[in-house]
Structure formats: structure tokens, C-alpha cells
């Protein structure tokens, strides 16, 4: 007990405080450096294209070493990134919450552990494996038949799912992305559910609530802010995912409203063309990198706002 207030203890406390401050500062310094250097590199491209950089649909890289001679309209990449990520989120969020509920509320103790491990293991698979598995098995043998069926039925009316079906497409990329972000969202959802006070559950059951009522009226609404946070983490991964999407999205620079057609995403075009690009085209690729960074920041800010709003309203509503 005496040691706790000794002179060496207070000295250590001071040192420790400084160590932690430095650790915090490192994150900020790295972030600022990254934004500053990339924005500086990309500046000539932003200057030349102006607002057309974000709205233009022509991407014709030049080959100059010193000047910016090409045309750089990044809208097809921004569009593709948002479409594939949104698709992934729409599929993955309900599925993940289902998986998490199954693990934390339904599964018996004997099944709970293996199931949780399996979900975590899914998160540990490298993304290139997802990409290759997608190209060689999942897309041709599972997704394409589904796409063909959809194009033959719903696709006749809804232009989102129209033929011709090629396999590599927004839809395939979004589907594999959904599988990739599922474990992240599911793991966080599970933790959030587990953190709810047992008493509320027991109270609800004691009042005669069914399982469905407990889950839909107590557990999910009470966890809403955590679920949004987890989903945003998943969305962050989807927006930035590179290699799996580069393999699956189809590498076509176009804005297509048909989900079954090939397109492109920001991360995929950077990875695909960086190696063989002239200096000015590399500047343009860095410029879309900066754009992706801005999108990610925007999404995170939005998530914070949603979480804050939910925290203010939902607890009362759930009571």
C-alpha cells in the first residue's frame, strides 16, 4: 500500500503521462502529414480540373512528367465506390445483426463459442483470398446463376438488374464485400448485445414478453448506437477495400445504373493502374486517394451525428 504514494511512483506517473501524450501526438502527426503530402502532390490535378474532377466522367490519363495534360474526371470511381459499399452495407447489416443475435441470444452455450470463433475467423481471411475465391468460384458458380435468374425475372421490369450478365460487376463486388464486412459488424454487435444489463432482459421475460418481443423491443433498440458504430466500421472497410474489389468489380470506367454491369472503384483503380502510370497520372491517382479520404471522413462524421442522435432519443423510447 505504501508503495502507491511513494516518490518514485509520482515520478513514474509524470513520465507515463508524457509517454501517453507522445503516443497521442504521433497519431495526429501521421494523419496531418498524410493529408498534407498527398494533397500537395495532387494539387496540380485539382487546380487543372476544378469541380469537374468530382463530376466528370472522362478519365484519360496523360503521359507527361512535368505538366498535367490528361483529362481527369473521377465520378465513375466515386460512384462505383459508393454503390458497391452501399450494396455491401444493405446486405451485411441485417445479416450481421442476425448472426450476432443468434450467437448471443439463441445459441446454447455449447454452440455459442464455435459460432463466435467461426465469425472471427472470417475476419482473419486476407482480402486477396476473398478476391480469388470470388473470381474462381463464388461469382461464376453462385452469384452468376442468381444474377441470371434475377435478370430474367425482376430485371425485365427493374433496370437495376438488367441483362446482359457478365459476372464481374458492381453486384459481385458488393456481395463479396458484404461477406468481408459481416464479421466486423457481427463481432461488434455481439459485444454490444452482451454489454446490455441482464436485468432488462429478465424483466421483460418476467412480464411475459416473447423472445421476438425481447429482441425487437429491448435488445436491438437499446443497442442502436453501438450497431450504427459497428456498421460504420464495416462501411469504412468496404470503402477502402482494394484487392478483392479490383479483382471483382470489372475494371470499366463508366457510370452504369445497372448493378449487373462492370464498373470501377477508387481503391481498385489506384491499385490497378499505379504501377504503369506516368508521373502526372500518379498525381491524379493520389487525387482520388485524397477524395476517398474525404469520403471516409464524411461518413465517420455522419455516423457520429447519428449515434449522438440515437443516444439522445432511443433510451427513453425503449423504456
Amino acid at each position, binding site marked *: 500500500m505504501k508503495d502507491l504514494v511513494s516518490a518514485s511512483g509520482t515520478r513514474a506517473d509524470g513520465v507515463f503521462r508524457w509517454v501517453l501524450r507522445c503516443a497521442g501526438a504521433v497519431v495526429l502527426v501521421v494523419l496531418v502529414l498524410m493529408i498534407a503530402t498527398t494533397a500537395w502532390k495532387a494539387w496540380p490535378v485539382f487546380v487543372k480540373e476544378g469541380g469537374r474532377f468530382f463530376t466528370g466522367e*472522362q*478519365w*484519360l*490519363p496523360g*503521359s*507527361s*512528367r*512535368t505538366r498535367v495534360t490528361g483529362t481527369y474526371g473521377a465520378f465513375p470511381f466515386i460512384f462505383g465506390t459508393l454503390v458497391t459499399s452501399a450494396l455491401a452495407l444493405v446486405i451485411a447489416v441485417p445479416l450481421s445483426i442476425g448472426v450476432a443475435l443468434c450467437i448471443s441470444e439463441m445459441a446454447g452455450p455449447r454452440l455459442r463459442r464455435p459460432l463466435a470463433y467461426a465469425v472471427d475467423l472470417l475476419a482473419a481471411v486476407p482480402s486477396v483470398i476473398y478476391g480469388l475465391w470470388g*473470381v*474462381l468460384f463464388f*461469382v*461464376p458458380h453462385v452469384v*452468376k446463376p442468381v444474377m441470371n435468374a434475377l435478370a430474367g425475372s425482376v430485371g425485365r421490369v427493374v433496370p437495376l438488374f438488367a441483362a*446482359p450478365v*457478365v*459476372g*464481374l460487376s458492381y453486384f459481385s463486388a458488393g456481395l463479396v464485400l458484404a461477406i468481408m464486412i459481416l464479421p466486423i459488424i457481427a463481432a461488434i454487435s455481439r459485444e454490444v448485445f452482451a454489454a446490455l444489463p441482464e436485468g432488462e432482459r429478465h424483466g421483460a421475460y418476467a412480464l411475459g414478453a416473447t423472445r421476438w418481443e425481447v429482441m425487437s423491443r429491448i435488445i436491438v433498440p437499446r443497442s442502436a448506437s453501438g450497431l450504427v458504430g459497428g456498421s460504420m466500421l464495416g462501411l469504412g472497410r468496404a470503402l477502402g477495400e482494394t484487392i478483392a474489389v*479490383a*479483382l471483382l468489380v*470489372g*475494371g*470499366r*470506367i463508366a457510370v452504369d445504373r445497372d448493378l449487373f454491369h*462492370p464498373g*470501377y472503384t477508387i481503391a*481498385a483503380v489506384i*491499385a*490497378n*493502374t*499505379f*504501377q*504503369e*502510370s*506516368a*508521373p502526372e*497520372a500518379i498525381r491524379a491517382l493520389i487525387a482520388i486517394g485524397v477524395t476517398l479520404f474525404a469520403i471516409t471522413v464524411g461518413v465517420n462524421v455522419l455516423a457520429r451525428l447519428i449515434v449522438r442522435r440515437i443516444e439522445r432519443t432511443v433510451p427513453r423510447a425503449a423504456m
Partner: protein
Amino acid sequence: MRPSALRFSAAVALVVFIGTACSTSTKSAQPTSGASGTLKASLSGAGATFPAPLYLEWISKYTKDVQTGVHINYQGIGSGGGVEQFIAQKIDFGGSDAYMKDDEISAGQKARGCSVLHIPTVFGAVAVAFNAPGLDTITLDGPTLGQIFLGKVKTYDDPAIKALNPGVSLPSKPIVVVHRSDGSGTTSIFTKYLASASTDWKAKVGPGGKTVPWPVGVGGQGNDGVAATVQQNEGGLGYVELSYAIDNHLKTAMLKNTTGKAVSPSIESTVAAVESVQIPADLRFNVSNVGGDGYPIVGATWILAYECGYTPAKAAALKDFLKWALTSGDDIARQLHYAPLGAALKAKSLANVDRINSKT
């Protein structure tokens, strides 16, 4: 604690024992295999990925059997990166599938203080792979291929294709155009061919290069991605490196060259194509308008070096390696499905090797 510590020390002893055993065995092997090893230098190069498998094979053979004192490191970072690093003086030699442009050469000359040397090493060909039910091969020509990649010829039984394949029953299947989504030398060779053989393509898409604004089609990543997409989609048609098409037994199209002969892609037809090329003095050339027995979609790849600025040891090693590769490396090149240079071009290439470090 005790048993695990024991096991640990036993493991260490074993590793040390194996290590010494290995090092003594390699040491004793050196005098026999490295009899001619008089040069000592360490070279670094980087650039084109297209010839990288060949360069790595050449380097491994050369440093193992010819000059054991020479270390060469080649990294396939892409032609663009290779040229940049070469200009920035970060590497001893560069590799590129496209010859350096004038502004690149002047930047390199300014940085180094002397001329840049282009040394062609081998040729590669690009095959058109397709997947149509009931067809084993198909004959195409430049203008028709251009129309297919422009999206104007849409089915296998289009009149333009019918005219080139008299008597063949062509399926009425839509063509699914597949191209590379990553920047590559293969794409560069293919689109430069389209630009030279199809005026329509040249007018609408441009002179060709590594990143192309494709009017139609779906992009696969790498040769694997293109081949997989072609095979998974009935009607698929795309382009891949010749070696990739041969190794994977893909069905490939025959192409009509400028003398009107339909030629299927192979090492022999690539070599035949190269024989007919006019070579300018600085060895910067495109292969186009091939006739005779030559296959038309062919491109060269270059090693880039400087005329000055190497240490004597480095210059000696680089020259010796390149001479060895150009004179004794043809068999390795053929095994890996690259076409070696013809005699006339080889002499010019070797003359440029001799100019390395000739100005001090």
C-alpha cells in the same frame, strides 16, 4: 521450465549444425561451379513486369553458373516505375516495354550527363483468346478486331467475321469483350496494334498505351483475370500474353497480317514477325505492318542503361551479363515463350551493350 529449456537448446544446436553443414557444403561447391567467376559487383535494376520472369531466370543462371561474384537484383515494378527510377538514378539499369519518350530521355541525360542506351532483349506476342461454343479457332483481321473492341461487331456471326471465315458455321452468340483492368505492357502492345491496323480504332480511341478508355467490355485483373472471365462467359473474347495462352491451352484466334496470311500465335510466328521490322539507329521502334509468316501483335522489351557514370566493376558486370543473356540466353527465352532477337537486331543490341560506360 527445465525440459523446455533443454528442448530449446537442442533446437538451437540443431539449427547451428544444419547451418554450418550447409555453409560448408556451398563453400566447397563454389570453386567447381564458379571457375569463371572473376567479376565482383552488385547491380540493381527495376521495371517492366512482362519480361520479369525471363530476367529472373537469366539472373539466377548467370549468377549461379557464370559469375558467382556478381549479384543482380531485378524488381518487376512496372515499366513506368522502371523509367522513373532510371531517370532518378536510383537503379543501375531499367526495364521497359515501351521505349523512352524524348522528354524522358532528356531528363535522364540531364541527370546523368550522357546518353541513354536502349537495349532490346526479347519480343513477346499477345494472343486473342476466345470462348465460343463449337469453335476451335477463328480467323480475324486488324479492322475487324478493332470493330469488336469498339463494340460495333457484336456477335460471332457478324458479316465481317463471316467474310473472314468462309465455310465455317459461326454461332449466333454475342461477343463478351474482355480487357485488362490493370495497366500492362500486354495492353500497350495490343492497343498499339489496333491503332496501326484499324483506322476506326485510332480515330475513336487513340494511339494506344497502358491505360485505355475502353468503349466496351469488362476488365479482368492480370492475364489470369482475363482468361478466367473469357472462360466463364460464353462468347468471351480477350487478349492475353502468348506464354499465358500456350501454358493454359486457350483457344486463340488466327490473325491476318498485312500480306493477307492468317497466322496463329506461336514463338515461330513471333520470330518471323520480328525479322521484317525496320530498326532505327537508336533502337526505338514499334512492331507494326508485319507480313509474310509473321504474327502481327508483337512487341519488344528493352533494358535501359547509360553511356557513362558506372564504376568500372559495375560496368564490367552489367556488360558481361547483358552479353551473356543476348548470346547464351535464347534457349531460356524460348522455354519461357519469349521470342529471341533475330541476328541483325541482336548485333545492334550488342553494339549498344558495348557503349555502356564508354564515355567517362
